[in-house]
């Protein structure tokens, strides 16, 4: 039990087979250490979102075990959710609410009283939307909605942050802003981050360790420099292509 709780995320033979018969992930053994930023990379359909959804307790695995700080996410999902927060791919917000109301709503599900006020203030600062926060979300751009959703997730300061493609659809400036803020929260508050991305540059910039998923299986995992040396690639893209090539 003490081994399990050492890791922010630990999966053992995690398998997800959908009702259609398609395989989401296959015997996945993944370990994310506390305090690190871990990047899951892989092409579309490789199982990144499936893995993150299972960890975030949105999907149930067909087989295997998943622990978040030692808590079994299948047996005790509510306790696991208290330890983490999740930003889905293409996360949006309620169109009829204002940005400020959305922040208040999402954070009120976790906090009350003074802690809630503090979290709201923090989210407003992160979102940095100025006067637009008092306008209905239906008028927001995709980038504004993404930042708004991210602000509530970060301001909740969970022990584990699960981010599915955090910068997808964002322009260059906003992408850089999001990467910097993720990094800041990881360093300042010791928040463990597990993220998925298509953007290898982003992963190289942000992550301490990465895992390459392909067709539901983890091909390789380790620190970025270690992987480059092990495989002989100049960057992560080359590492990915070489590892994938070895499979074929």
């Amino acid at each position, binding site marked *: 039990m003490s081994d399990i709780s050492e890791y922010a995320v630990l999966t053992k033979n995690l398998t997800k087979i*959908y009702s*259609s018969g398609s395989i989401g992930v296959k015997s996945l053994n993944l370990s994310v250490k506390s305090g690190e930023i871990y990047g899951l990379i892989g092409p579309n359909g490789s199982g990144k979102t499936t893995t993150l*959804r299972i960890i*975030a*307790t*949105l*999907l*149930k695995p067909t087989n295997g075990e998943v622990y978040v700080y030692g808590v079994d996410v299948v047996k005790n999902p*509510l306790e696991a*959710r*208290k330890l*983490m*927060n*999740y*930003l*889905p791919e*293409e*996360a*949006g*917000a*309620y*169109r009829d609410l204002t940005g400020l109301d*959305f922040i208040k709503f*999402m954070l009120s*599900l*976790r906090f009350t009283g003074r802690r809630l006020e503090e979290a709201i203030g923090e989210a407003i600062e992160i979102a940095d939307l100025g006067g637009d926060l008092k306008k209905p979300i239906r008028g927001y751009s995709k980038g504004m909605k993404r930042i708004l*959703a991210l602000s*509530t*997730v970060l301001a909740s300061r969970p022990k584990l942050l*699960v981010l599915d493609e955090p910068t997808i659809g964002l322009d260059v400036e906003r992408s850089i802003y999001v990467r910097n803020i993720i990094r800041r929260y990881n360093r300042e508050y010791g928040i463990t981050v597990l993220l998925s991305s298509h953007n290898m540059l982003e992963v190289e910039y942000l992550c301490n360790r990465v895992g390459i998923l392909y067709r539901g299986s983890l091909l390789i995992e380790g620190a970025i420099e270690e992987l480059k040396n092990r495989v002989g690639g100049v960057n992560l893209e080359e590492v990915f292509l070489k590892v994938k090539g070895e499979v074929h």
Partner: protein
Amino acid sequence: MTLTPLLIREVKAFIKNPAFILSIVFIIGFYGILGRLMSTGIQTAVEQTLNMQIGVVLYDSSDFAVRVLSVANKTSGGRLQLVPSLEAGLSIYDIVVVIPSDFTIRVMELDKPINIESYIKINTISPVVSGAKTNIITVISDLIRKSISYVIAIERNIDPSLINKHVLMNTTLQVYGKIMKLEEYSTISFLMGFVPMMIAIIMGINAAYASQFTATEKVEKAFEMLLAQPIPRRNIVFAKIIGSIIASLLMGIAYFTGMFLILLSATTSTPNTIGNTTGLSVNIIEIVSGKIGFNALLVSIATIILGLIYSGALGITIGSIVSDERIAGALTAPIIFTFIGIGYALIFIGLPVNIITGVIAGITIAPLPVIALVSTMIGDFTVLTTSLLFAVLSTIVVMGIAIHIYNRDIVVLGLRISRFKLKERK
């Protein structure tokens, strides 16, 4: 023409939506079965009523009265049966006509109308059966009037069409043992059809609201964030049910306020003599309190509350398993039509009120007020208790299903109905 591709796109959006196709198939199938059941029930009821024997109490033993009755009996095909008293008649037949002792005297006096008392026993909630029985009274009244003219014409050797005596039929109904006037029964019959129908519509609208709200939340992409929060999923379901109930209640309050104002001022005057009204007025509120009792009213209110929870949970279940608003929208129509169909079916099929129909009413909820009304009138609450028990149970079950679904993958992945898969299975 830019309209053509736009139109094709719009039509294709519906036709290629599996939920839309399934909805059409479901509506046709459901109403087909319902129609057949109702048709069979109505046909059986009408046939039984048309072949019904009628008891006649003859207090006027004059030769004239006997001859009139004999003519009337022959004309009706022998359906009139002499009985010694009203009580004896009602224990055998559903309709009893009482020929008074002054019948012949009144016939012979030109300025006096002929008053005949008639009694109808109604132990069904089917408006078709009760309507047919009350129509029989009109037929009997006309038959006696014509028989009087015929007998007088024979006696005096004159043309029967020259004789026109007015027969005034004063009808009393024994509805599930409760004595009431025809106009009072008309009001109760209206309520028996109207209240379940209204509850069914409210339930349908509520289910539609709930499914639309839930599907919209999924489309807004905030749903997964919400599911990842440290709150029990059942709380999300409860909040959604209560939310849809509030929305439906606001709509319902506005509607019922209007309806209540109509009921308060609703009076019906019934002509008892030709060209002259008796001034008898029927107030629905008085009838509800006097003949039905406010127990039935309370049950109706409880039914609305249960119905809203039930339909809210059902709508949330549907909204949570569909992938978008379009599919939820396509499923809205069958939800509403199913509730309306159920609301009507039990009444028009003409089933008796017993434990089995009580269970059906409990499971489908909308017909509960009818069960309450009948139970109150007969003074036996066994069926009503069973109905309410099943209504509460079915509501809990539907809520349980909604909570169960919220804890399954389907709430995130959505129900996928693909034509490809259907073909593959063939």
